[in-house]
Each structure stands twice: as C-alpha cells, then as structure tokens.
C-alpha cells in the first residue's frame, strides 16, 4: 500500500482505535457475537459524524462480471447492505449494442496490459470486459459444466492441482444457474454424470459450422452434441427481470446482446440484486483498499467520474477478474503472505482450425458455438495431462480478418482474395486444460497507465503439456475438417481466459484463498472470479465462476448466521 502521505486529503486511511461494530469485533476476537446481536443489515449508530460516502456498509463488491454479480444478488437477497463498484458504465443494450464489431470495442478492458513470454496473451477483446456485466457482456455464452475429474488433475496425473471443492459440492450450483439463467442445451447431456434436472430450454438451432462439424465428426468417429449455451432458445421468465426474449440467431455473442437473450449479468443477476436493494455504482475504479492496524479491511477508495471517493465496509468481495484482482492485491500489498498472488497464471489452449467449403456457410449467423464434443476430454492416445473439448465456431469479419492477418501473415491481394471466401469459411476450436508453471505469472510493470498506476505484465509461455495438447488437437480438427470436405485448412494458435492468479487451496502456505473464497490472511476479504481457480478446467469458465460466486456467498452467509446466534 502506498504511503499515506501520497493519498489525497480526505481519503486517508484512519487507523481506527477500536472496532465499533459488535459483529466485526466478535469476528476479530474469533468468538460468538453478542447474544442480542444487531441484524447485520441495520447500520449502527456512529460515534462521530462522518461524510455521507463514508457510511459503512456490510459488503463492497468490486467488479460486476460472472464473479461479482451472482454473489451481489445473493448478499442483497439475504438483506445485507451491499455496494457494487464497477469500473465501466451501465449500458442500455438496445441503444448501445450495435451489430458492428468496431462499435462494440467499448465492452473490453482497453487499458493496456503488457503481454510477455513466448506465447504472449492477446487481451482486450480476447480476454476481458468492462461495464456492468463485465466480460459476460461479450462472452460467447458457452456454459458447459466441467466433468468431475477436471477438478482432480493432480490425483489423476500427478501434475497440476486438485480443487479443494468437489464436483458434488458445485453440482447444485450448476443446476441452479442453468435453471435461473435459462440455459439452452441437450437433455440428457451425453458426457459426465447423470443429472437430476435437464436444461430448461431445448438447444439453439445448429448453424452451418455446426452442421459441417457433425458431418466431419461422424466420419472420423467422434460423437458430437448440440452445446449448452446461455442464450434463450425460447422466451423465458427471469426472476427480477420479467420475460427475456428468445435469441434472434444474430451470431453476435462476442459483443453485446441487444435483446437480452444472452444471459449476461446485466439482464440476470444484476436486476435481481437491484430489486433486493443492492447499490450499483458504475464508472467506479477502485485504487486503494484500506485496512486497520490489525489488517482487517475497512473500506476502499475509488474514482468515479473523476472524483475520488471512499466507501467503508465490513467485508470486501474482490471480483475484478484474474488480471485486476491480483493487480489490486499487489498494488495494495494485500493477501500476499502465501506468495501466490499473480503466480500460477494459466490460459486455455484455444486453437482454432478453419477451412473453406464449397457450400455457403455464412459463418456470422446463429449461436457461434452451436456444437460440442467432449470425446477428447481424456483421449486414449494422449501424451499429455488433462484434455480438451471441441466446439464449432461462427466468426465475424473484423475479428476473423485480424486473425488471418496475424495467423496466416497474408497481406496485399492474397489477403483480399482469401477474405472474399468469408461466406464459405467455417471453424472448429478447442478449449483445453493448462498446467501452472513457474514461468507464467502476472507482475506489476514499471510502466504506468493513465491513472499513474503500474500496468500489469502477463508472462505466458505454452509448456510441453500445452504444446502436445495443441498438436493432438490440431490433428483431430484437421481430420474432422478434411472429412467434412474442407479445403485450404489452417490453424490459428491462440489462448483464451486468464486463470489462477489468486488460487484457492487447502492451506495458506500455497494458496491465497480457502475453498470458500476467503483470504487466508485477511479474514474479511473474499475473492470470487477466475483468479481463484486452482486448475484451468477443460471447459469454458463462466459457469464455474458463477457457481463459485454463489457458493462463496452462501458460505459467507452461513458464517454470519453462526456469528449471529
């Protein structure tokens, strides 16, 4: 944490002489709260006058993506006084979400991150989000559950990490989320354990790329299935929102959904949270996390529309994503005793293989990831730990052209000629597990951003396991595309999602938070986002981020209740 001298007047971190709140005092003393405990949602009388913004609330949540929004709703529904600080604005989907890639650039975290290592991670539109809803505003809406053994890599392979949470503990949350969000998917789902409940909606229709993948995969003996997607195949009633309209097959999921069919947080958990009294503060960028002499968090300092403000809180939920979460911890020298903040950075191998078909594909239409296969979850002939899934992909012209430029190095007339085939091009991609490695980590760079804060630098080099997985996957996808009749097949190397930079574990010796998301060394700090993942999982992360978020909220509330009685 910076010296107090450098803080502006009025936002100094006061070293509190004593804790005023009986609940927190009890927590501090690690003893039961007083019998006549004040309900936690009732603000206590303050011994002295404070500025309005300094009123203490039960919980501050930083970040309103898949990590912050679900627990915000949960905490608000439990009657707690909660404030959510989101760095980006609150959008109006109908007015702001154009079907134009460039016009949607504002959805990404565009402050510069430095990408180092042999496989530098593309950030911005590939990996990040800003705004009320976070990255879910532009996630592709893939919502597969992990398979149970995704959580036990070390047990099964002797490498990577096991999760301190079992699949059985997460299962009720997956089920709850699928029902609440209105996931469209196949029932029964062909892979993994039998489920108590099927998906609430039928799968979305298969677009051309999905149909081609069915054709090719059948020929090479790979099972496929319509995928689970967080976009509505029919109208759906959303608690706290009302009726959400069905997907119009616009195929534009990697940007904002203009009719609310996609289950981004702004049309699901956030309205629910608001209905239950959550105070949402957009355009609020947190810079400081304040503590008392005992190391307990007392509040945060943030900048909203150019004005510096302070919000006091009893508990802090850090849900800023796997770059900004460790960055805030490092900037504030918070929760660093394990030495793991910023370490264990993982990224999903997301290799894409494209081919040109004689048929008309028109790859911009329909849900982009319409088809899935998890037959490659633990391939028989694998020479690597873990595995991957296969998904068909639809593409949009600007993003795709950028990949052609970077990946094929085409320029001049050959680039224009290749792009004229746009309506005949279809892709498949993988999403694969990744092992942590000492060379892969996040640190603060010396270079400063416009706010005067150090830029984050992300080091990533695909190691032997990722390279072998990529080679296996490229061979598999090429064979599918050849069998489907593609020509001019090429592979684009990419990695998606940053994971693991504040991991959970059983002990504060090698993990930042416990299985409930609570920091080992800061008792009133919780983290809920993909930075807590101990391993990367071989599925898209959003659903599991939300599941952990709900679980963290429930564990927190259970603990508060125990303190109350």
């Amino acid at each position, binding site marked *: 944490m910076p010296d107090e001298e450098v803080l502006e007047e009025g936002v100094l971190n006061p070293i509190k002489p004593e804790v005023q709140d009986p609940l927190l005092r009890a927590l501090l003393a690690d003893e039961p709260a007083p019998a006549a405990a004040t309900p936690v949602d009732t603000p206590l009388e303050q011994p002295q006058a404070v500025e309005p913004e300094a009123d203490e609330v039960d919980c501050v949540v930083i970040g309103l993506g898949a990590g912050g929004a679900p627990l915000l709703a949960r905490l608000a529904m439990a009657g707690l006084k909660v404030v959510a600080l989101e760095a980006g604005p609150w959008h109006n989907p109908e*007015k702001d979400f154009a*079907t134009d890639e460039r016009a949607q650039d504002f959805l*990404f975290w565009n402050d510069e991150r430095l990408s180092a290592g042999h496989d530098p991670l593309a950030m911005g539109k590939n990996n990040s989000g800003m705004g009320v809803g976070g990255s879910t505003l532009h996630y592709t809406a893939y919502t597969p559950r992990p398979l149970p053994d995704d959580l036990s890599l070390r047990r099964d392979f002797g490498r990577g990490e096991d999760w301190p949470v079992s699949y059985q503990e997460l299962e009720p949350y997956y089920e709850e989320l699928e029902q609440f969000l209105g996931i469209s998917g196949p029932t029964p789902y062909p892979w993994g354990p039998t489920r108590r409940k099927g998906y609430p909606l039928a799968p979305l229709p298969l677009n*051309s790329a999905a149909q081609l993948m069915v054709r090719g995969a059948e020929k090479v003996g790979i099972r496929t299935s319509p995928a689970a997607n967080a976009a509505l195949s029919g109208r759906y009633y959303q608690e706290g929102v009302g009726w959400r309209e069905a997907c119009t097959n616009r*195929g534009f999921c990697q940007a904002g959904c203009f009719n609310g069919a996609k289950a981004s947080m702004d049309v699901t958990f956030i309205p629910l949270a608001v209905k239950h009294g959550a105070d949402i503060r957009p355009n609020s960028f947190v810079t400081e996390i304040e503590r008392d002499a005992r190391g307990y968090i007392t509040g945060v300092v943030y900048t909203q529309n150019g004005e510096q403000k302070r919000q006091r809180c009893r508990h802090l939920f850090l849900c800023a994503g796997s770059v900004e979460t460790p960055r805030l911890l490092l900037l504030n020298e918070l929760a660093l005793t394990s030495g793991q903040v910023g370490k264990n950075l993982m990224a999903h191998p997301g290799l894409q293989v494209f081919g040109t078909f004689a048929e008309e594909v028109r790859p911009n239409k329909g849900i982009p990831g319409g088809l899935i296969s998890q037959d490659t979850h633990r391939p028989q002939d694998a020479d690597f730990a873990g595995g991957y899934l296969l998904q068909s992909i639809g593409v949009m012209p600007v993003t795709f052209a*950028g990949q052609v430029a970077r990946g094929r190095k085409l320029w001049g007339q050959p*680039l224009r000629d290749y792009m004229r085939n746009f309506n005949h091009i279809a892709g498949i991609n993988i999403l694969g597990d990744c092992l942590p490695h000492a060379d892969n980590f996040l640190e603060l760079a010396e270079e400063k951003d416009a706010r005067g804060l150090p830029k984050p630098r992300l080091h990533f080099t695909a190691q032997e396991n990722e390279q072998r997985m990529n080679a296996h996957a490229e061979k598999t996808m090429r064979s599918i595309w050849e069998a489907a009749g593609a020509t001019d097949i090429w592979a684009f190397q990419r990695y998606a999602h940053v994971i693991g930079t504040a991991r959970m574990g059983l002990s504060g010796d090698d993990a930042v938070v416990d299985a409930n998301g609570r920091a080992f060394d800061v008792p009133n700090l919780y983290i809920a986002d993909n930075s807590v993942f101990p391993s990367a999982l071989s599925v898209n992360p959003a659903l599991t981020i939300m599941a952990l978020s709900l679980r963290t909220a429930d564990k927190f509330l259970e603990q508060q209740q125990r303190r109350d009685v």
Partner: protein
Amino acid sequence: MLTPEYPSGTVRALLDSSHVSEATRAALQARLEAPAAYVPQFLAPDAYALLEAVAARLFPQPDRPTQPVPLAPAVDQRLAEGRADGWRYDALPPDREAYRLGLGGIQEIAQALFQANFADLNTTGQDAVLKALATGNPPGATWQTLDAGRFFEELLAELTETYYAHPLAQEEIGYVGMADLPAWTKIGLNQKEDREPSLSS
C-alpha cells in the same frame, strides 16, 4: 476454388432499409460518410504520407482508384487520442513510439535495398520492402531494437481490422450481418435470407 465476387451496393442498400437497427446504422453510416480529406493529428506529414503508401500496398485497391477505403486516418486518430486495445506485446515500445520508429525503419529498409525512399519505389520495390519487414529480419539500425515481426503483425492487423470494418469492404466479401432485423431463421448450410446477397455471376 474461384474467388467469389459479390455485387456492390448491398450493404449501402440495407443501411437505407428497416433491416438495420438504429445503433448499427449509426456506426456504419459514420464510417461510410467520413470525409475523404484527412489532416494528420499525430504523425508528422512525412510519416503520415509513408503510412498511407504502406497501407496502399498492404491493401492494394486498384478497384477503387479515386476513393480507396481510408486506412491511415484510423491509425493516426487512435495514436493522437492515445487509445489502446487492451494489450501490447511487451517486446514493443508504446504504440506511438512503435509507429514512429517502425515507419522510420521502413524507410531504412527501402534505402538499404534500393537506395531510395519508399514512396519513390515502384509497387514491386515497395512490396519487396514490406516482404523484408514481414520476414522479421530486415536491414536497418531500427530493427536492431524494434521487433520487426511483431511490429509488422501489429501494423497489418490494425489496417486489416480497419479495412473490414468498412461497409465497402463488407460488401466485397458478401457480409451483411449488420442487417440485424428481424431474427435470422435460415442459418444452416446453403440457406440464406432474402436480404443476403448471392454471388455476382
């Protein structure tokens, strides 16, 4: 496979129809109506002229001799405003510096290979310079410190994304995803809505 050709005017016609939502129309119309003349705000006139010449080879537009899709203005505007796209190769200096150095470096390659300025070379010579840059190990003092491969990749990607964001480039490849109303129902192989174009011939 033959290179597909689509009729021109498709996107422009759709922009005048009820198939395009208001937000989408506003974005595309602004790009279409951007004034042809542009005064650079960040790059020096020489450097900007060089960027234009480079862009004309990375995206040759012989089919639009008088009014090519403008590419250099977007780069200069972004640099002037200091906008980023969320990340940068750690191997490269900040964007403004990278462009200044890189454009100077392109001039160095032209001098080393042909003892001439890039702008004075014929298209074959200019392409040879860009090819040397693209291969990642071009001549010139600049490239001892600036990563040529990464600079070329960034330059090409930015120009490419600018080009394909333009309605005329989208007409060229038969993309009409901006016609976002009403719902798409024909999304399978060889299926198309009436508002989607067929090949010219």
